[in-house]
């Protein structure tokens, strides 16, 4: 057993997550086994692995550990296509206001909320689309709205479960740029190894609920990747 390292690391940044030999199972089926990992504030982590490897379970586990610090970037199907971009982003803070205020804001956007949402839309490059119905947007634009919702939710950590797997690679790149540029701690499950190599500082390979590797992209060889996807 490794010695327990202190919570503060050399760079002086906080350790956000620390897992020691954690197991998670659903209905007696083990989903995560013997997971040990630490994630520092400011890191950009990609989790890769074949379907069923436990990527979503890991993200959910991390969320449960610090629900107040984490915002999820959902896939675009979790948006409400009938509502405007503004309202979809506003949903990120739905639980912080009264039902009455939410109702008023649904009928007619409140000025203070618009002022909060506008800078986020500027970052997304979508300020002109504020009143557009999300259902009328392209997949890439929708995914950007999903990022906007997570940004509006706030917190130090962005968790993203395959945020770009259902849009084309070009738009996917733009969305990942946005996510990485938020300056928050980012932990994302990714389908594409290429994207993981390009956008993450650290890649965790999951296989059947266990960590197969955990290293920076530069230290990962093609054999490591092939082994992960072929032998799992």
């Amino acid at each position: 057993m490794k010695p327990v390292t202190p919570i503060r690391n050399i760079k002086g940044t906080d350790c956000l997550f620390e897992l020691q030999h954690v197991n998670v199972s659903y209905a007696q089926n083990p989903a995560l086994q013997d997971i040990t990992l630490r994630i520092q504030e400011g890191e950009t982590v990609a989790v890769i692995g074949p379907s069923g490897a436990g990527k979503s379970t890991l993200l959910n586990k991390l969320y449960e550990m610090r629900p107040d610090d984490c915002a999820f970037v959902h896939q675009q199907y979790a948006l409400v296509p009938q509502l405007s971009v503004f309202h979809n982003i506003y949903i990120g803070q739905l639980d912080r206001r009264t039902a009455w205020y939410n109702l008023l804001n649904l009928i007619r956007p409140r000025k203070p909320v618009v002022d909060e949402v506008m800078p986020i839309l500027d970052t997304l490059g979508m300020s002109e689309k504020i009143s557009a119905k999300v259902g009328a947007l392209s997949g890439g634009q929708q995914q950007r709205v999903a990022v906007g919702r997570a940004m509006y939710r706030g917190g130090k950590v962005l968790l993203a479960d395959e945020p770009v797997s259902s849009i084309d690679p070009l738009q996917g790149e733009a969305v990942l740029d946005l996510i990485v540029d938020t300056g928050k701690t980012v932990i994302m499950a990714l389908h594409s190894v290429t994207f993981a190599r390009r956008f993450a500082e650290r890649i965790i390979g999951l296989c059947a609920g266990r960590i197969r590797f955990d290293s920076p992209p530069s230290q990962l060889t093609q054999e490591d990747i092939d082994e992960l996807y072929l032998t799992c």
Partner: protein
Amino acid sequence: MLKTSLIFIGLALAALCFADLAITTLHPWMELGRMLRGMATPDFMALLGIWRAFVNTVAFALCGTFLGVAAGLVLAFFFEYTPVRLMCAFIRAIHEIFWAFIILPIVGLTPTCGVLAIAIPYAGIFAKVYAEIRQESDQRPLQGIPAASSAMSRFLYGSLPVVYQDMKHYTAYRFECALRSSAVLGFIGLPTLGFHLETAFREGHYTKAAAILCAFYLLIASIKYWAKPRFILIPIVFAFLFLSKEIYFSIDNVRRFFTYDILPWPMRRQGMLDGTRAVAYPWKDVGAWVLTVFQQEGLEGVWNTVILTQIALALTGVLAVVSFPLACAHFMGRISRQIVHWILIVVRTTPEYILAYVFVQLWGPSMLPAVLAIALHNGAILSYLSSQNADLVELRVDAPKKRNNRYLYEILPRVYGQFLAFLFYRWEVMMRESAILGILGIYTLGFFIDSAFADHKLDKAIILILITAVLNMGIDTVSQVIRRRLKISTKLVTST
């Protein structure tokens, strides 16, 4: 599906042996000639004197639908609870006219009666349909709502926007039905169009009747101009204001109705004879009394209602299967198709009750007018929906050129599942209508209920209405089982 269809046609043929289809009037066709002449020369000046009936018809429908929607929305939230579901099934199993009969002794022939008669059964219908729309809607947007949000906020942002369009369309369709119900309520004396229509027909003023009918069609066809969903609150407020002068409600009447008037006769008999209005509890006598009502009137009413429904169901199906190609782009040219469409619109806009009333005037009370009225009205609806579905079918280039081959091998097999699903969906509606048409003198449940109310025997009427409701709920269940067994659904129909 073919087997099921044949079984139901067989049932209808068997039912024909027991049905009384006689024409009892002396000169059935002479009156028809007069009627058609009158229809060709509508007297629109006659409408000026009855503008109030128009406003009432619209106001009853608006207020009734509004209250029905409000109650239905609340009930839909609790629809997963069996008692709520059963209660909704029960209140919608009772026809608007029967509700009017029940409410009449409490509030008299007032707007309150008309509005509640629409609102109560519609609340049950809205609750069911709204709950189904929500169940079948896309649940994924709810995953994106923060877990700690209040139930209200979750609904407002995660569910309502997703289901709003479907709910709006269904509510608009129901409002059209409410206008028909409202007009028909006039036939039992409420101050809507049906009242003047009945008078005009009874007195042979066919030119006036024609004008009222034309105006009614216009009213229905123009709904989308005067009842825009966005501004619907304005006409609703006006409707309530218009009716408010005559609203009548007495809590004493309600109490007396529930705690005295509808109690079975044996419970009231002794008190009535003594003049004390005391209530006794002779359970044995009550049981015997209920049994007598059931044996003497209930059984005959149920039997005739079922016979009538089964014949009408099969005839509706046959009419629709034969007529829908006439309204379908794969078989007919544009102009003839348009003509058929207009005929179908007129027939399905005319409430069954009015059709049946006219036929009874012509041929006298037997099952014939009722069967024809139900089959024509529902056949037109089904024919329209099936032709719409058939138009969606894209035929391959080498599809059969001969129309009958094209119909039998390409179109019919593709639309038959939905057609049958919708037919079974209407089964319960037809049964409700069969019972109601008894008021016109056909010996279905409505006849006995109407007579009981006329004799002020509220206790008997309530028992018979309960029997009707149970019969409807039974048919509804059987219809669901058949649809599930055949794996057919109306889905495509309602979504297009």
